[in-house]
């Protein structure tokens, strides 16, 4: 997965604008599918420096993670919330500094010196320059030539947005818990909405999928994952917000939680049915075991891809519609783009809930399958 999207995009300086827009859309759709085969593409710094509008860059910038939280403006005059950069280098241990030290440079020009090491931000990837290097350079296969990549544990925009979700969830649910500590009556207003949702997760997701006996054990995970995804999805729709649940790293982590719960809580029956299926000819058993183990891994992988793809796709559609205004260089297009984008945004409100529901539902289903008591025949 090393060859990535940027080089493909950068290697497409547009000639005709309309032609280019079409090409970009086609390229983008194909890009995901053909990603591993695009090794021939190379970085072209001139294309980036040209003032010509590049919608793919814009979209990738918006849906990607970054080291600072940019709200509006350009360059040094922009309004950007600086976030801490935390790096781990094998030579010098942990290095921390604020993202503002890059001075909004993402092209690898501005060098930050810390503890005798020199760092540049190239397309939101931080590189540690080798001695004597002034800027990061790549070969034709996009392998870095004069720098190395340190471990990056920065509080990026996505991590900051994640913290925001955490703070909101703590406020919401501590509030609801506080209500229940004080009185025994049903809560009113916002707490009532929250409680209805908690009961929705319990009665529509956990109980039917896992069963009355065992569902309580998994309620903390299911509730947390449901509200985390939903609230993060909704926050992601705000202007200037981060695309957290549309980031594969986030969904990978969430999927791993589901996988871990399946592996930890899978009972004897589950493992027997996975590894040595009873009631079939012996020579089929190993074949089926391979299929079952693959299925075990594919389930959480499907979860992580579904969430990531749905949320990212929604963002890309909205950004593409808005991008049309700049591609066609006409404010009149806004008359069509903006209502369409608004429509998609409203649709995304639904998708935000739906994806949270589906992720939680399927997690519960997989866990339920792992803990189910089989009737022995």
């Amino acid at each position, binding site marked *: 997965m090393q060859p990535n999207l940027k080089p493909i995009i950068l290697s497409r300086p547009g000639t005709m604008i309309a032609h280019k827009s079409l090409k970009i859309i086609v390229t983008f759709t194909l890009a995901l599918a053909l990603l591993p085969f695009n090794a021939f593409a190379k970085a072209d710094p001139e294309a980036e420096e040209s003032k010509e509008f590049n919608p793919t860059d814009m979209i990738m910038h918006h849906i990607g993670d970054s080291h600072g939280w940019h709200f509006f403006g350009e360059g040094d005059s922009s309004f950007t919330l600086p976030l801490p950069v935390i790096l781990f280098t094998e030579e010098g241990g942990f290095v921390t500094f604020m993202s503002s030290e890059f001075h909004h440079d993402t092209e690898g020009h501005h060098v930050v010196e810390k503890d005798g090491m020199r760092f540049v931000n190239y397309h939101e990837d931080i590189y540690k320059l080798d001695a004597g290097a002034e800027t990061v350079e790549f070969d034709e296969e996009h392998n870095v030539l004069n720098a190395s990549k340190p471990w990056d544990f920065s509080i990026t925009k996505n991590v900051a947005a994640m913290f925001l979700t955490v703070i909101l969830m703590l406020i919401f649910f501590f509030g609801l818990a506080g209500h229940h500590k004080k009185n025994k009556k049903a809560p009113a207003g916002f707490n009532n909405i929250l409680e209805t949702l908690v009961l929705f997760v319990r009665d529509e997701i956990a109980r039917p999928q896992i069963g009355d006996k065992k569902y309580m054990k998994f309620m903390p995970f299911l509730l947390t994952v449901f509200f*985390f995804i939903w609230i993060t999805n909704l926050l992601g729709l705000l202007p200037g917000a981060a695309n957290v649940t549309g980031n594969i790293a986030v969904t990978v982590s969430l999927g791993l939680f589901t996988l871990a719960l399946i592996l930890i809580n899978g009972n004897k029956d589950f493992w027997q049915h996975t590894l040595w299926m009873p009631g079939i000819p012996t020579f089929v058993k190993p074949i089926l075991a391979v299929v079952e183990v693959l299925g075990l891994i594919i389930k959480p992988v499907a979860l992580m891809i579904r969430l990531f793809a749905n949320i990212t796709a929604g963002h890309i559609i909205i950004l593409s519609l808005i991008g049309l205004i700049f591609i066609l260089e006409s404010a009149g297009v806004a008359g069509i783009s903006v209502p369409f984008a608004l429509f998609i945004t409203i649709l995304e409100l639904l998708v935000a809930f739906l994806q949270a529901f589906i992720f939680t539902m399927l997690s519960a289903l997989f866990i339920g399958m792992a803990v189910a008591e089989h009737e022995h025949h």
Partner: protein
Amino acid sequence: MDLITPEVGLIFWQTIVFLVLMLILAKFAWKPILGAVRTREESINEALASAEDARKEMQNLKADNEKLLQEARAERDEMLKEARQLKEKMIAEAEGDAQEKADKIVAKAKENIEMEKRAAMADIKNQVATLSIEIAEKVIGKELSTEEKQHQMIDKMLKDATLN
């Protein structure tokens, strides 16, 4: 940064943040919330059950009342019936008595009349006899005033006697 290459840093933070969030919420939010909801549901169920019980009890009471009412009604009917029977019986008895008395009076009256009649008849008979004897004495006195006439009489009677 690549779209579909997961970054280690973000996975790290997501895992830590999610785990900590889950543990904190599990202890301080989910447990009290779910506990309170369950308690409330149980109390609601109990309230519903007791309401059902109360309803049943109410029905029982109503049925009892109905039964009592019916019994009272039946008793009343019985009493009315008895009273009516008594009344009829009394009337019948009274009628019977009156008839009897009337009959007695009538019978006595008839007896008296008979007696009076008989007495009158006897009186009449006595008077007739007396009169007859007086007449007969007068007649006989006249007929047997002479000897000859006495003989004639004796002869005639003898003649009649032989004929018998």
